[in-house]
């Protein structure tokens, strides 16, 4: 918890230069524009996105819209999904990194159409039906402790990882962690997506089973385990969190796989039964706006989707650094297959069998 605070505080400090200017310039304008329409509203956001990571974005939105009271509820992907389906009254905006679940919610009619200037111009590959919008661009990476690098050649591709697990079974016993497909929507999505790309994925799962790999429920859990020395190697971890973590934890090294790297998008939609749709539209519009995306690129590790935004964390910069082997998980109906109960059950069964298999 102490480290999280440091992280948040550092971000706030480092980002104040550029966006501070922007804020000063835009604030009077926005206030003037909103003055007449202003009326107090509470905007309820269910978000599977760490509040301290997201805080700069929320803060700027709050500053731009003093008439809106933000009620941001930071939850797990599973909880967000449950609340979106059942909560009464329904939340206004739903944000989650579990893309298939979000798409399923939207497909089942829990979302409503957003029609704002920003939403219309948003790239087609990052939205679905003008209802669900992917507003970040987060690579999925491997992370390892320096201890591992001392003991062996660190992996840079999926094949390297498999070889490593097979060849250093003794050293890596109980020191590998991956996202749990059982307990996390992201974990499920990532492993299913991996399995879609190559059947060798199952060799990897078996190899992880051989070393009794842990299955973590969140990226933070994996990162904390790496820093504490509990784990040496983390597979399928959110790059956005890991890269920032590594900045302040020199013992952790982030490796974007060189063969292919999945890219995940956080998605947001306005709930069909939103109590405050106007505020919700404004919030989504802000997420997609240049201003919102600039904050994400400068003050959060969420990676801006917009090509016209400059900052340390942008999709463009990531592409420049990593090359063209980024595989964004497409935001389309194919994702629904990943949440098919039968397919999911079969996948988990196979996962568990593979993890438990003894040689």
């Amino acid at each position, binding site marked *: 918890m102490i480290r999280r605070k440091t992280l948040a505080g550092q971000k706030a400090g480092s980002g104040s230069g550029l966006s501070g200017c922007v804020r000063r310039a835009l604030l009077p304008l926005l206030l003037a524009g909103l003055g007449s329409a202003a009326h107090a509203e509470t905007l309820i956001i269910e978000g599977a996105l760490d509040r301290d990571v997201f805080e700069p974005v929320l803060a700027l939105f709050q500053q731009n819209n003093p008439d809106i009271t933000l009620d941001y509820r930071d939850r797990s992907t599973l909880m967000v999904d449950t609340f979106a389906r059942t909560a009464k009254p329904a939340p206004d905006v739903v944000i989650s990194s579990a893309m298939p679940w979000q798409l*399923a919610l*939207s*497909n*089942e*009619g829990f979302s409503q159409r957003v029609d704002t200037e920003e939403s219309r111009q948003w790239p087609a590959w990052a939205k*679905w*039906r003008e209802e669900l919008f992917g507003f970040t661009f987060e690579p999925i990476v491997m992370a390892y402790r320096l201890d591992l690098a001392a003991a062996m050649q660190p992996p840079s591709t999926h094949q390297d990882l498999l070889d490593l697990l097979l060849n250093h079974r003794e050293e890596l016993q109980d020191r590998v962690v991956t996202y749990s497909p059982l307990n996390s929507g992201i974990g499920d999505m990532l492993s299913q997506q991996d399995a*879609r790309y190559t059947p060798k994925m199952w060799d990897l799962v078996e190899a992880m089973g051989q070393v009794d790999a842990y299955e973590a429920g969140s990226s933070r859990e994996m990162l904390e385990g790496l820093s504490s020395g509990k784990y040496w190697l983390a597979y399928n971890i959110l790059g956005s969190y890991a890269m920032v973590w590594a900045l302040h934890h020199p013992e952790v090294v982030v490796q974007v796989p060189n063969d292919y790297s999945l890219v995940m998008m956080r998605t947001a939609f306005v709930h069909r039964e939103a109590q405050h749709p106007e505020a919700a539209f404004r919030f989504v519009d802000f997420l997609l706006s240049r201003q919102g995306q600039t904050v994400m690129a400068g003050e959060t590790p969420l990676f801006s989707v917009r090509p016209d935004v400059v900052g340390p964390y942008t999709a463009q910069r990531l592409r420049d650094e990593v090359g063209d082997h980024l595989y964004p998980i497409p935001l*389309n*109906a*194919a*994702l*629904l*297959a*990943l*949440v*098919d*109960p*039968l*397919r999911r059950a*079969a996948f988990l069964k196979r996962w568990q069998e593979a993890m438990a298999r003894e040689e």
Partner: protein
Amino acid sequence: MAQSLKRSLALWWCVIMFCLGGLLLIEAWASAKRSADQALDGQLEAASLDIAEAIQWPDGSPMLEMPASALQILATRWQERVFYQLIGSQGELITSNTQLPISTRLHQQIRLAPVFANVEFQGSSLRLHGRQVTSAGWETQEPVEVWVAHTTEGREALAQTLVGGTLTRLAMTMLITGLILVFVMRAWLMPIRRLRQVLRGRKLDDYSALRVDVPAELRELTDTLDHLLERQDQHREALLRFIADASHQLRTPLAGLQNSSELALGSTDPERWRQALETIYQASGRTSRLAAQLLNLARLRHQVSQADLQNINLSALVRDSLMEWADRQQARGHDLGAELPEEDIWLQGEAWSLHELIGNLIDNALRYTPENTVITAGISRDAEGVSLWVEDNGPCSETDPQRWIAPFERAGLQGTEGSGLGLAIVASIAERHGAELKLSTRVPQGLRVCVQFPQGGADDQA
């Protein structure tokens, strides 16, 4: 008459285009919907086949790794909301992402053939497609119902695009035909315009045939115009001749007047003056009579109108005229008589002109026959109508007296006192009443002038 060809043609074009366009639009909308349905039903079918292909029976129960491609096909490029439901033979749910509203009737239909249906679901309309798959397994071969559905936004968008295309084409067609119509109309009306220009540019005394290149349909019109021009030319010729003759006729008595007065002025003898005055008196009498007849003739050239016609007792008219003439000096040496039917004859006519007609005929008979000639005026009625006639038994050398009808013909007797206008006036009056003027010689001698009125008198004359 004020109706414009252009306007009525344009109106008809609009009506036709409106009706035709309406029909085409209805048809286009229906066919666009059909095409859109066909195109997207194909995707439903492909998705259902894709899913069916993925069903396996590893250990007696169906297993399915939902193919992501099937859902993508199902979503189409319009990103429809997609739904699917797989149902086993006992009605048990295999897998689904929603509870689709599938009626029992659809469940029955699917056993025979794949079905398509439109259903309402959560307030939006869905296109539903189902097929039954019998998959071969080692232990069981149970049929599985595969149901897929998607929203219909894409179909509507596609249909709208298709209709939009048709609409554009229709508008283009209308525009093009409209333009063609304008040009065709111009081309059609060109001969008429040319004709108008020719007519407008014509000199007043030009009665030659129109030399205009016109289409066959207008040929009749130009022929009629040519004919009219020709007739007008003849009429004008006659008029000119008449004026020349009239001037000539007037010049002779006027010259006589001048001579007599000149002679009288050159003399101092009062007796000569008196003779001259007498000559002048007679000559001026003749001249004024001539002038009166010319006036009559000019008057007769106007069209008679229905208002001028009245019911006239022709018998009384003949009787009165004879009485009138019998009292005059000219009739002293002649034997004037009448031959009238017992009952009075009535007909529609113009009183003054008929009176003039009878007067002229009697005057002519008196003027051109020697003394003691028997002159009879009469009316007879037969199947052809009413005849008014005047006959005499005076000498007549002419074999074709019909030619005397022309003005200034004096029955070859140029020396007599007549103006030469009498019969011409008679002919004009007869024409005004639709009657026919016939002159014939009699045996052994004499002349008969007969005015044959058509049946019913002048009733049908305008």
